[in-house]
């Protein structure tokens, strides 16, 4: 069995998901993790799929041609064995929200500060809101604090960035509870 990562993106309209998943169903592909969302006017799908008999992406043949013909871009990545498995992630879950007047470098500066501290981002969304004249940039991310990085170290770093970039940044840890 091989696993593939599939990315499909194109101008949004009703019916994209069913068009894609009908093809996958007929190919005998199983969808495992997936995330699909409207970004701007584009609908973006990212799926991890498995297929019992396929060994390379050539086995998909021209199955995705109808998607390309309807204006969608399709990209297939063959995963190395084990690449479909969620790694064991350790650390405290931290949610960081950033918002302020739009300006270049918000995502870069915040994520660089995280990367330098080996803080692993597990989820990140950004959105441009507000009016055309006064755009507001919003970023929400979740990350795992490795052992040795305390929430307050991160809060301090983010406070510095907040002043420098003139944006609001909130850091809070989330404790998942098993009930």
């Amino acid at each position: 069995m091989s696993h593939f990562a599939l990315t499909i993106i194109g101008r949004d309209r009703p019916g994209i998901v069913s068009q894609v998943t009908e093809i996958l169903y007929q190919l005998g592909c199983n969808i495992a993790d997936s995330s699909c969302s409207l970004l701007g006017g584009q609908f973006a799908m990212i799926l991890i799929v498995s297929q019992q008999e396929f060994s390379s992406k050539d086995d998909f043949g021209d199955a995705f041609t109808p998607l390309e013909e309807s204006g969608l871009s399709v990209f297939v990545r063959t995963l190395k064995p084990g690449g479909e498995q969620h790694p064991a992630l350790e650390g405290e879950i931290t949610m960081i929200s950033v918002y302020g007047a739009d300006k270049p470098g918000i995502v870069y500066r915040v994520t660089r500060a995280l990367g330098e501290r080996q803080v692993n981002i597990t989820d990140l969304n950004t959105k441009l809101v507000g009016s055309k004249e006064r755009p507001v940039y919003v970023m929400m991310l979740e990350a795992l604090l490795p052992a040795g990085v305390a929430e307050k170290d991160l809060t301090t770093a983010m406070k510095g960035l907040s002043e420098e970039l003139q944006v609001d940044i909130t850091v809070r840890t989330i404790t998942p509870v098993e009930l």
Partner: protein
Amino acid sequence: MAVREILLYPDPILKTVCTPVAEIDRETDALVQDLLDTMIDSGHSVGVAAPQIGVTRRVVVVDVSKSKLGRDNNHGQLVLINPEILEREGQEMTREGCMSVPDYTGNVTRASSIVVQFLDRQGQERAIHADGFEAVAIQHELDHLDGLLFLDRVSSLKTDVFRRKTR
């Protein structure tokens, strides 16, 4: 007295509406003991509902006194038979997980304070006011009695269901 196995979704019992306990008899008491034993044995759990151990009766046990989030504000070990929430106030969001739905957690918004009426282990009518994490835990366990899992309560689609961090 026994530690019972926790049923996992998609066991249909977890989606069953449970029936009230008619009489606090020896059978009910044994069920309560099994729930307590199972909750304590699982170590990390702060509550167990009867359907989670395969019994479709309206009984849950809750004890948040050992957990970080609940240790400063709680009623200790609670046995709730035929519980009913009389009042709800406020709201708070918790990243919930459930022993019956392994590997997933989701953000659930629930009332931050509740008044709950129930019969205790001795069959006495009681009503308590619970808030904070204890209120969240009681609401989560009571949902089990109506066949509801936290997945039925996840509040928004976007990024609400995450894989649980590996323990």
